[in-house]
Structures are given as C-alpha cells and as structure tokens.
C-alpha cells in the first residue's frame, strides 16, 4: 500500500509527511514530526491527553487521521510557550502544582488555552464541563481548575 503525502501547518510551521491512511494525526505528530507533547492515553477519544486544535477547533488527535490534516492549521502543546517564556497557563499549572505524573498536562494546557480564547471569563462550572474530556488520574482536578480560573483572572487583568 502506498503512503499518502500530507502538507500541513503545525504551530505556524509548514510541514509535510508521508503516512499510511490508517495512521492517526497523533501517530503522525509523534512518530513523523517528533512532537511528542500530545500523549496517547486511551486512543479512543475518552481521555483528552492527545488534545490539539485543528483550524482553531479543539479535537482529540487520536480521533483524526493524519491524512485529514492536509491544508489545516494544527496547534499543539509545543506551540504554547513563546521560546523560553512560558504561557500564563503553564506558569499557573506549576505554581498550583496542578500535575503529578504529567501525562494529562499537555492535553489540559491545549484544552484550557482553547477555552480561554473562546471565553476569557469562564465560570468554574463552565471550566469543569469544558475540561470534562481531559482525564487526570492523579490530582483530583481541583488544582487544575483553580490554576485555570486564576490564569483567566490574571489574563483579564493584563488585557
């Protein structure tokens, strides 16, 4: 079976890869582009550890084929910091110790950033529902939610 050529944009950079049509976007990001921030937790769209945005829309990269990325704008956790300067969400996640093993953290960062871009002033309930598809088996979520809420407040003050 011949592989398919895909041209896409990841974190603002034009990239291309060859993939088998069965390979997911997550496979392609990790194995072809060496962007290993997105994690495979479940592979079935339940855990959110593979969260990325595609044309600004939050999705599970395990539920999308690599070939579907043709011509799209992909954003991953690797694109969140500006060089060595962490995004406010990243700083707050550290400040609040909102992670333990860290497997879910890249997905949470991508999902939370997507929330704050859409809604800079979410309620706690909105935040919890938005992040319901990002499972964390370590923290019990409370620190994560507090980190996101505090980031939102700080970013509103700064803007």
């Amino acid at each position: 079976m011949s592989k398919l050529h895909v041209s896409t944009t990841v974190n603002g950079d034009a990239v291309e890869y060859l993939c088998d049509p069965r390979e997911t976007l997550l496979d392609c990001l990790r194995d072809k582009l060496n962007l290993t921030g997105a994690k495979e937790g479940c592979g079935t769209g339940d855990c959110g550890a593979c969260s990325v945005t595609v044309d600004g829309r939050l999705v599970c990269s395990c539920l999308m084929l690599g070939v579907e990325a043709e011509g799209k704008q992909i954003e991953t956790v690797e694109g969140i910091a500006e060089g060595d300067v962490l995004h406010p969400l990243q700083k707050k996640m550290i400040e609040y110790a909102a992670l333990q093993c860290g497997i879910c953290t890249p997905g949470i960062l991508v999902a939370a950033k997507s929330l704050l871009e859409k809604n800079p002033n979410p309620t706690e309930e909105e935040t919890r529902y938005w992040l319901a598809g990002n499972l964390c088996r370590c923290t019990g979520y409370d620190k994560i939610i507090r980190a996101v809420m505090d980031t939102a407040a700080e970013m509103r003050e700064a803007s």
Partner: protein
Amino acid sequence: MDYHSPASFAEASALAANATGITRFLAGGTDVLVQLRSELVTPDTLIDIKKINGVHDITRNADGSWTLGVATTGAEMSEHPDLGKDWPGVVEAMDLIGSTQVQGRATLTGNLCNGSPAADSVPAMVAAGVTVTVTGPDGTREIAVEDIPTGPGKISLAKGEVVSAVNIPARGENAGDAYLRFIPRTEMDIAVVGVGVSLRLDGDTITEARVSLGAIAPTVLLVEDCAKALVGSKLDDAALDALAAAASAACNPIDDKRGTIAFRTEVAGVLAKRAAKIAYARAKGENA
C-alpha cells in the same frame, strides 16, 4: 485501507458502489476511528466526505426549514445563533455527546449512521421529524430518520448510498422540543434511556406531538401511543401519566451494566414526562 476524499456525493456514491469489502464513510470519525483502532471494523475503503462543498453549512431555507451539511459538528450547531432557538431539543441532544473535543468533530449524520440505539441525537431528530437526503447510484431520495436504523449497528442504506444532507423541518409557531437522557453521572457517558419530545400548541392545548425513545429497544423508536396520550390535552397530570405508561409500554430493552430492563422501563416514563414539560414550556415561549 484505501482512503478517498471525493469532491461530490455522486462521486462518493460511485466509489462506495464499486468498492469491495468493507466500506465506511468518514465525517467526524468519532466512531469510525474508535472501531478502526479496536479492530472491530477495519474498512477496506474509507471515503472522507469532508472535502465536498457545503458539508459544514447550516442553512435556514426560505420556508423556515433547515438544511445541515453532513459534516456539521456538534460545536458548530451549539454555536449557531438561531438553530438552537428553533430546535433547542435537537441542539441539546447533540451537545450531550462526548467531550468538548468530541463535539469538535462529531456529527448528527455519524451519530445516526453508527446505528447505536443509545445515540443521543437520534430520538431528538425523530421527535423533530428530521429527514436525511440520501445520494445513491440511482439519484437522491429523502428518508425519515426513524427509518434509518434497523438494529444495533445496522442501518437501512443500501450499498453505494450515502447521507448527503440533514433536513430539519420549519419549527413554526407555538411549538417546542426537548431531549433528556439518563446517565449515572453528569457528563461523558452513554444514554441508559433517552427521550425526545416535540409539541405544538393551540393556546394551552397540544395539537401535535412526536415522542421518541432511545436505548430501550434495538433501535430508537417513534412511539405513536405517547403522542396520542398528549394530543388534545393541556399536559395535565392524567395526560402525563398516560404518556409515562405509553413510554414504559413501548420499551423492549436489554439488561446490561448500565441499566436493567426494569430500570430502563421505569425511567423511560419518568423522562418522557419531564421532557414533555420542557417542550411544553418552550412551546409557550417560556425559558426551559
């Protein structure tokens, strides 16, 4: 697996008609990719319909009806400024499916064609009287949503047929719809029972009703006896009790880890009452 991304539904239909082995159409992929990964279904031919013009469009037609492209996602439906005002039940049913991430990809058409009796959007579409346009080798035809599923994971479309549009009727005056489901937690779960209700009123009296039940039989059901219990009433206690009895009587569920037969049968009646009250309030222009 051969991957195709045709530019038209006629081309998609021809690809499917001429394919051998297992064919799947790819819209949001939230079921197709799960089945692929778990090796439940490994298609020989995968036909991605998202490169076809208009598949993400939500269009309000001149007569007040709506046409939705087959790749329109749940998120796009929820974000639409007017669709949810006409059909809150359809939009809330779709919105209940999965996480934010799943909402970014999942579609009404996929939920329907996956053939699950527990599909949340399907009872809401059946109650609303939604039809789908199907493109096949012999042209297009329009099929009521309730005629698509034939059993768990099975649908009535023939080889070479593909859903090419979702048609939601004009809402019209003094009407409302609602969808409720029971799950044992607050989010990210599959319906144990789902109920869709759509009503029209003349004053306080119900003149038209459609009631659909999910997860209580091998397919989503349109229950005529539930509608009969409502039509002519003012949604008084007697009508609600008759509705609940008709809903429970229509149930033919399975026992599984998510709910027993007895539980599903009881809850179908309870949810039918609650959904009818919401639809009634909406038809009267109240927030519910």
